[in-house]
């Protein structure tokens, strides 16, 4: 688990570079809240604290959630989300290994449903806004909700690329016009594309370490890209390219760090493939046709629910129980 956390570091560093120290503040808050809740719950349940707190699973949950949050979200939101994800989504289900839903995504989903406005308070990435916030101003905003005199939040805020595409399309703007806005970079949004690339790097490290099954990210990205590709080829005026979908929002983070969460996904090879594929499909549908700009979190939660069924119906054939031909081919 600590290796998973390590794999997130390039992403965090890039994120911080583009969006400021707010990111680190969110991560710090989430980590402290998650660990405290974890220890508290273990204590309540009379479990030994040390092996569970040190195994890093709470830290990874906290980091993943913090990375899905807007960097300038108020402090109490991330704290509340961390507490809920650990207490509600994890310990209420029986603790490590027993939870049905991905705790990080539960925390995020509760917040985006409850506080949609605050959850879309994204600061503009580096160099995009007319004014930018220094570290002190970011801290002040997160903890007090006020900005230093003379600063207006609207002046520093910006919607995410996915959000922008969505709202603009609703106003019947042509895709090419949208993509010419300065928010967008070569493939995704400015900054976002580098951050997602950094997640990809971390993901490759995880693959190399054999910590995640390759089939999951590959299927997820393939289906997401495939869906995007089909629509894009048919009507590039209204749909964005696969590359855009891969390199914006939580696609990369999801592919390597969220969809791969072992506890809440099926365990059979075929089941994992189906699971990841369906998440890819749902993510695309929610992004393009749903009410929320990004769909990874909801897609993951919905499929979490289906994981036991997928497992049930994808039991691999056991040694000696399959027909001989298949065995030969497989070997």
């Amino acid at each position, binding site marked *: 688990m600590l290796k998973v956390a390590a794999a997130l570091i390039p992403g965090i560093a890039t994120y911080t570079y583009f969006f400021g120290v707010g990111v680190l503040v969110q991560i710090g808050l989430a980590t402290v809240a998650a660990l405290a809740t974890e220890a508290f719950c273990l204590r309540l349940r009379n479990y*030994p604290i040390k*092996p*569970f707190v040190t*195994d890093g*699973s709470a830290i990874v949950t906290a980091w993943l959630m913090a990375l899905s949050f807007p960097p300038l979200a108020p402090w109490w939101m991330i704290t509340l989300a961390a507490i809920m994800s650990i207490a509600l989504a994890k310990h209420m289900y029986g*603790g*490590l*290994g*027993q939870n049905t839903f991905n705790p990080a995504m539960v925390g995020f989903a509760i917040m985006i449903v409850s506080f949609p406005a605050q959850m879309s308070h994204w600061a503009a990435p580096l160099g995009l806004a007319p004014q930018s916030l220094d570290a002190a101003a970011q801290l002040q905003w997160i903890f007090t909700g006020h900005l230093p005199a003379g600063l207006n939040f609207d002046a520093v805020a910006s919607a995410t690329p996915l959000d922008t595409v969505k709202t603009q399309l609703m106003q019947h703007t042509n895709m090419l016009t949208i993509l010419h806005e300065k928010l967008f970079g070569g493939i995704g949004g400015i900054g976002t594309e580098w951050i997602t690339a950094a997640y990809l790097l971390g993901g490759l490290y995880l693959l190399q370490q054999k910590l995640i*099954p390759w089939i999951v990210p590959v299927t997820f990205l393939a289906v997401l890209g495939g869906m995007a590709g089909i629509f894009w080829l048919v009507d590039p005026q209204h749909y964005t390219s696969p590359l855009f979908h891969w390199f914006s929002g939580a696609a990369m983070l999801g592919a390597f760090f969220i969809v791969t969460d*072992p*506890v809440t*996904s099926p*365990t*059979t090879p075929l089941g*994992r493939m189906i699971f990841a594929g369906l998440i890819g499909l749902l993510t695309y549908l929610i992004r393009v046709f749903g009410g929320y700009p990004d769909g990874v979190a909801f897609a993951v939660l919905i499929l979490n629910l289906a994981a036991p069924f997928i*497992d049930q119906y994808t*039991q*691999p*054939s*056991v*040694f*000696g*129980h*399959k027909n*001989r031909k298949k*065995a*030969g081919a497989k*070997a």
Partner: protein
Amino acid sequence: MNARAEVSKVIFPFHGGVHPPEHKDESSQTPIAAMPVPRQLVVPLHQSIGNIAKALVAVGDTVLKGQMIAEADGTVSAAVHAPTSGRVVAVGPTLVPHPSGLPEHCVTIESDGEDRWIERNRFDWRNAEGRIIRDYLRDMGVVGLGGAVFPSHLKIGGARDGLDTLVINAAECEPYITCDDLLMRERAAQVVEGIKIVQHLLQARQVLVGIEDNKPQAAQAMREALKNAAINFPADVVVVPTLYPSGGAKQLIKLLTNIEVPSGVRSTDLGVQCFNVATIYTIYRALEHAEPVISRVVTITGNVQRPGNVDALIGTPIADLLAFAGDKPGSQAYIYGGPMMGFELPGTSLGLSKAGNCIIAKNGALFPEKPVEMPCIRCGKCADACPAELQPMDLYWFGKSKNFGKAQERNLFDCIECGACAYVCPSNIQLVDYFRFSKSEIWAAEKAKKAADQARERHEFRQFREEREKREKAERAAAKAAARTEASGGNVAEAADAERAAKIKAAMERAAAKKVEAAAAQTASDSVTPIDPDAVSVPMGQAAIAPTSNEAPQAVESAAPALDPEKAERIRAAMEKRAAEKAAAEAMSPEEKAAKEAEKKAKIAAAMERAAAKKAGQAAQQQPGE
């Protein structure tokens, strides 16, 4: 001589597998050492799958080396022999190498130091029938020495039109163990002779010897021996990659032939048979030298001064073996078998069994303590490692929640308990322990179910029989009555009926009276009173099967319709009596108890006397007739 065709050397990998540190070099550097005959040998009698062998010797007997001391009991069983000459000093339950730590039947022999063989005659197996050869092997105690101790005679024969492939299992995939390696290096020629015998017996069309690639010397030795031997069938050594558990019979068969043997199917039916290389060696010794299985090569390694392989007699106490290899201080436990599938010995006084391929002295440096077991995070690593292609985390979950039916549904019985899953589990879950637990629970439940079904069946049959007897008697009585009616006209029949009814009534009254009497007698005998012979004789008078007077059969016959309620009554009475007894026993002081004991003895004595008297009386009665 050189009719050897090329055999296929393609390898068909099995799913999963792990590669733990091998630790083989420690014990494979020195040649096999001969272990001196120990002072005392503890020979377990349960040395094969199936029935425990029946002891043929008693305490005080002298035995010769190779003498059969216990014979096979039934087909699935194998004989046990005296490993050396000496005197039997104990026969009975003794600690055996088994994870339960429970005692089982053993013969303890004190050696006389002479190591004198029993007379041996070479068995002319070439001209013997298959059945005779199988019996011979059973009586020579030949069992699978790879650890499963399956009686070898059961694996020979069965394939009527010959076998496609005979697989010789020399993979020895478990870490630490090197006994087969050394056996092949030093006795390859004899192993090949054994292969020739088994090939002949099974009429195998080809022979493949599977050896892991970490034993090049053994592979080389076997290749040369095969080349030098006059064999007229295709045979070759196939070197397989070192990957645990390639030495599992099913895995090796898959590796060499691509045939997957499901659980519950005999590999013979699929055209393959697998023998451990050490077993092959003992088959050779048995058939060509009339030597029963009384010794084996065993690896002693781990925390000892001179790790290596020892040719030791079966029954050699583990402590002697350890002393021979130089036991070092600091061993926490001794593992019997390999580190993956073996178990910790319950003691070191117990004797080596045929299954014992390895003894590892375990210390903290070699076997660091396992970290605490964490919850399963469903990472799937165990499924990736499982050679049986199971989903161990699901089986674990079902086993843990005692949902055995589900576990069975998910093919729990295909698990070969190799331990690969537990080895890779990042949560340090001892998965195999759960599988063993589930399996033995399922077996126990099946046994209980069978017993219950049997009891139900027997009970129902008994009821049916009682019913039938009752009916037959009624029919007989009716026939008699009819005969009488015919003889003496119609109105007599009514009279006869009335007479019979009266008789039945009388008999029933008598029975009731007797029951009251019996109850009284029972209470009398239950309370602490001087012995009353009548109290005993009344229930005896009730005995229907031992009629002594003329009247008894009648009583039974006529009382028959009342049998069922009577039986219920009897059960109830028995229960009451037991309750009363219990109460009485509880209320009794020690002196009273002693008194009751004495009374019981007196009662028994009286009954016996009476029985004797009766017998004498009967004899006397019979004599005049003669």
